[in-house]
């Protein structure tokens, strides 16, 4: 790195939301003219860090310096004035305005109080030409592809004299060719001395474009490395926080290889642009873990299996019989249950009581015409509160007042009450304290012993290894490897996640 002047210095940033410490003493350094990847799994604190830097959230401690000067922006506008511009995955421009208006909104060239439309278009055209774009700038922005909208957003940001450009998942909705063009633009901007922060979960792209990498995990800084000298396996270890030494420790001796009956199977199941077609067999009394990095297609697989997303190819079978899975209602009818990752938004109804939350799915399954009597509801609620040890053991308490672990149990109870044959758990231990972790894991094993079939997604590899009979590893929205029996250990999972894409592709097709 010839140009090593540090442009953006972030030191000792901390940020808490209530009791949750989202960032703890995080440092981050961006040099002028470099492309710096900011990586971390879900909940690592990437977006919180970006929002603190750009003034969307106030910080609790630490400071931010740009070009040696301390700044404390209170709004995105102030951050832009200080020279920090952010382009989010969801393009923050106005699709109903013309490209030119978007580029020059609130700073249009004027004469006698009238916008000089011709001059504005000419300037817009010249500005976009710098980015290799030759389009009709008078057309509404919404009539162009997401890639062009991204480039327009970047052009606006750079034209607002940005010295630091933060790109938050800019490539998520671009195709390969568009990514190439975006990378070309990024390199060109870096040459001009602009520092670029690149947030992405596509590791191939990170290796292709970035000079250095900073990894966050659970709100803490894990480390900063030169991309060239950081092995892929090492990077994944940093992100997932696993040392290879402490592998298969507490793995339950679950491998009594009795032949179990197939509960549900999916053949060549998939959806174009969502998850590549996969084969998956789920057996009674078996836990199948889904492992992979954020964005690798784990949640997508779960949604396909449950019917929350419609597969466009392949065949699903339940107990051997072919079934249609077109909607969550179909999933519920076949005895599937799904505890989504976003408990707060997709799962619990915080204002309702524990009892009401528990009977929700069962009532939905029975239909409105056969309401559960209050006595039945009380009975069910009491049973599950006891069985899952939900605390406080008060079925009439609003769920929003319970701790994360107990909310998770209420969700579990809701689906268990429908006596499902297959339960899909997406990150069941996310945001739950350590004590409750162990309890949820114990519950998962117990449920399984009762003949329930479980499909569990988790980023905690230790956990997955502890309770899974088989582990499916995903990468770039495809199932790349299935580990069973003795092969299930953290090292093998990491190796499969990190494996070179070419060999993995070959393995997957043999």
């Amino acid at each position: 790195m010839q140009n090593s002047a540090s442009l953006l210095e972030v030191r000792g940033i901390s940020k808490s939301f209530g009791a949750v410490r989202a960032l703890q003493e995080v440092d981050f350094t961006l040099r002028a003219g470099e492309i710096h990847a900011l990586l971390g799994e879900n909940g690592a604190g990437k977006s919180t860090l970006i929002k603190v830097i750009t003034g969307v959230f106030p910080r609790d401690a630490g400071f931010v310096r740009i070009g040696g000067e301390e700044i404390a922006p209170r709004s995105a506008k102030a951050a832009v004035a200080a020279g920090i511009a952010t382009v989010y995955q969801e393009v923050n421009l106005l699709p109903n305005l013309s490209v030119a208006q978007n580029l020059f909104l609130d700073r249009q060239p004027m004469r006698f109080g009238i916008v000089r439309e011709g001059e504005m278009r000419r300037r817009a055209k010249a500005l976009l030409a710098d980015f290799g774009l030759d389009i009709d700038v008078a057309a509404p922005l919404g009539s162009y592809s997401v890639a062009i909208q991204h480039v327009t957003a970047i052009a606006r940001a750079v034209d607002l004299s940005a010295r630091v450009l933060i790109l938050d998942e800019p490539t998520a909705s671009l195709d390969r060719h568009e990514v190439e063009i975006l990378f070309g633009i990024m390199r060109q901007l870096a040459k001009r001395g602009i520092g670029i922060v690149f947030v992405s979960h596509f590791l191939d792209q990170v290796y292709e474009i970035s000079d250095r990498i900073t990894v966050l995990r659970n709100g803490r800084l894990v480390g900063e490395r030169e991309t060239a000298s950081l092995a892929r396996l090492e990077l994944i270890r940093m992100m997932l926080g696993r040392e290879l030494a402490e592998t298969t420790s507490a793995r339950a001796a679950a491998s009594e290889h009795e032949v179990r009956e197939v509960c549900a199977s999916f053949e060549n199941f998939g959806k174009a642009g969502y998850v590549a077609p996969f084969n998956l067999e789920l057996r009674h009394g078996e836990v199948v873990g889904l492992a992979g990095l954020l964005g690798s297609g784990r949640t997508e697989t779960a949604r396909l299996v449950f019917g929350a997303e419609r597969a466009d190819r392949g065949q699903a079978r339940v107990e051997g019989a072919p079934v249609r899975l077109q909607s969550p209602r179909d999933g519920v009818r076949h005895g599937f249950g799904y505890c989504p990752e976003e408990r707060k938004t997709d799962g619990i109804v915080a204002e309702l009581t524990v009892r009401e939350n528990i009977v929700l799915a069962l009532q939905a399954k029975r239909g409105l015409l056969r309401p559960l009597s209050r006595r039945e509801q009380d009975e069910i609620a009491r049973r599950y509160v006891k069985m899952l040890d939900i605390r406080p053991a008060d079925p009439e308490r609003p769920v929003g007042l319970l701790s994360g672990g107990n909310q998770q149990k209420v969700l579990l109870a809701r689906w268990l009450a429908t006596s499902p044959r297959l339960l899909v758990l997406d990150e069941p231990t996310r945001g739950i304290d350590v004590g409750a972790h162990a309890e949820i894991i114990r519950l998962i094993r117990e449920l399984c012993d009762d003949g329930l079939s479980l499909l569990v997604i988790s980023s905690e590899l230790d956990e997955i290894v502890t309770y899974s009979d088989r582990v499916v590893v995903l990468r770039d929205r495809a199932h790349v490897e299935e580990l069973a029996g003795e092969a299930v250990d953290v090292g093998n999972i990491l190796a499969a996640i990190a494996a070179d894409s070419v060999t993995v592709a070959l393995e997957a097709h043999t």
Partner: protein
Amino acid sequence: MRGLPPVLITAIVLVAGFALCAVQFPNIASTRVVGNLLTDNAFLGIVATGMTFVIISGGIDLSVGSVIGFTTVFVALAIERWGMPPLVAFVAILALSAAFGAAMGAVIHVFDLPPFIVTLAGMFLARGAGFLLSTESVPITAPVYSTVSDFALRMPGGGRLTSVAIIMLVIVIGGALLLQLTRFGANVYALGGSRATAGLMGVAVGKMTIKIYMLSSLLAGIAGIVFSFYTSAGYSLSAVGVELDTIAAVVIGGTLLTGGQGSVIGTFLGVLIQGLIQTYINFDGTLSSWWTKIATGVLLFAFIALQQGLVALARRPRTKSLGAAT
């Protein structure tokens, strides 16, 4: 390239409708009828111009009908009972209505309330205040009124372009220029696209909201004065429900009710379409005047369905991409 823009469809409906009416009643195609049409709908055209700004910015203003009613009563009382010179009365009521609109805009922005609720409150407030001033119709006899009412430009063919029609045309043209050519206009569209994004891009959302509702109420005030010219009286029950006719004209004119798209010219055409239906019914003589409402309702449905279709078309995934596809 993607079908016709809504304004053009409105224009086609107007021309086709006018042609149909002219076939049945050849007298309709005269400057006399057109002049009357402009005069009769002058206040509607003025208030609809303001409403266009509000709706494009993603809001709604239900108070305009009441503001017109209040204005007529205020002007009548000020001139006839309180002895104010008409010009002073006009300035006073315009200042008052502008302040009223600014206050509604401020409430909408500061308390982050839905415009529907705030302007609904404004509607009751203005109507109630009108009743407070006077519950009966107050005739205006000031000489200015007959002078202004009688003034008209002669058009070829015997038609008269009255002063109120001229005021309306000036406001429509001025409004169209303000919306299309100024930074203020661009910001109105920006707010309608997304308030949050517009704010992130540097638009002063609060100030804009206040100015937009101020403009709408100010134009409602002018419409009220024009209405008092037209009727030569002030009555607190006048212009009841005009806010809904106004919204209908704006929507028929091709403005998206959810904001972000539309034009003043389209609104003007929408006003003319409503006026044309009314004129047709007058010529026919046997139809009840409520047929205006029914025809307006049918047209509204048609235009909303059309807009939904266009929006759905626009939401379809694009194939246009950067350079050549891979």
